[in-house]
């Protein structure tokens, strides 16, 4: 397992407050693919998204999604992913309007270890009548100094889905925490999922 910086070049890695995990099972042709990159590849993979939403079509019937079609759901995931990436890039490059803004400000913490990604023009979008809540979630935890370590992510359609999916995510989080503890790196509050 590796922990790699998401933002900074390697020589400046000590400035980075957002890190991603490379799980050995995600290694392809000898290359480690970190989970953050892997998730954004998946969330831009039309074939994967179409299969995912066909499989979970019943979940889209929830009035919460306002009669969203599979086609619209694919658009929504891709747009959310790219809007967040755009926001992340703007923060990294401290573009006009982003001066002094930090990565933590675009990670809205839903629960202790579940983050919603704030995309570009978030407030503007919320005001639209057809607005639906974000589908994408990142999972991870914060270290002693608030540094965020990303361990996983999901397209979340229902609360029930959280029950099933969260077990896997909790296991991943615990696995990474154990790995870091062995290196004398500790998380902010410790893992206490009830």
């Amino acid at each position, binding site marked *: 397992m590796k922990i790699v910086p998401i933002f900074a070049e390697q020589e400046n*890695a000590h400035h980075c407050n957002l*890190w991603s995990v490379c799980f050995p099972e995600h290694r392809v042709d000898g290359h480690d693919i970190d989970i953050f990159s892997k998730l954004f590849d998946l969330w831009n993979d039309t074939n994967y998204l179409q299969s995912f939403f066909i499989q979970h079509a019943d979940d889209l019937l929830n009035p919460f999604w306002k009669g969203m079609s599979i086609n619209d759901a694919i658009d929504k995931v891709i747009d959310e992913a790219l809007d967040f990436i755009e926001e992340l890039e703007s923060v990294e490059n401290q573009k006009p309007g982003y001066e002094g803004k930090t990565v933590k400000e675009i990670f809205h913490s839903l629960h202790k270890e579940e983050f919603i990604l704030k995309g570009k023009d978030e407030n503007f979008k919320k005001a639209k009548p057809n607005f639906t809540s974000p589908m994408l979630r990142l999972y991870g935890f914060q270290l002693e100094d608030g540094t965020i370590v990303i361990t996983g992510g999901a397209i979340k359609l229902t609360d029930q889905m959280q029950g099933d999916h969260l077990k896997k995510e909790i296991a991943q989080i615990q696995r990474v925490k154990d790995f870091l503890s062995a290196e004398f790196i500790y998380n902010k509050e410790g893992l206490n999922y009830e």
Partner: protein
Amino acid sequence: MNDLHNKLKNLSGGQVSSWKEKAQWRLKNRSWLKLSSNIARRMAASLEDNEAMNQKKLAEQVGVSAQYISKVLKGEENLTLETIAKLSEALGTELIAFPEYKYSQSVAAPTFSYSTQALVIDLGSHVRTINNSLNEYSVYCGHQNNELKASYNLDAQCAVVPLNNSGDRLDYKKCN
């Protein structure tokens, strides 16, 4: 220097997350990637509905590798018009569609109606093809063959000719 981040750095194996390069490429090409994704969705649905077709057969018919079809289905390939046309033909389905535009409507002849006061010519879609130099209508009263000039309103898409004689048989032609 932050001791915690130095410890993390030691666990990176000198590697940095690979998200950035792809992210920049996706943001830069966002507009055509959306088109590519939409084509991929329609291809996948077509493959799903056609039991006699699969990715391998499609690749053979189009003259590309199965790996390429697999990449196309991910929705991140910048397809040429030639490839789209071949894929469309092989799948027997439209993968791109064109919206109606001003010249796609039928060029219907203007219709007219008249009262005792005026003749009204409904220019309908005809008005869209009127050139400024051809903006005048001549109207003929059938038995007298008197030529009357019509004034027309582009916004209302109609031409109005005041009439002197009620009940005359009228015809019209576009002035040249």
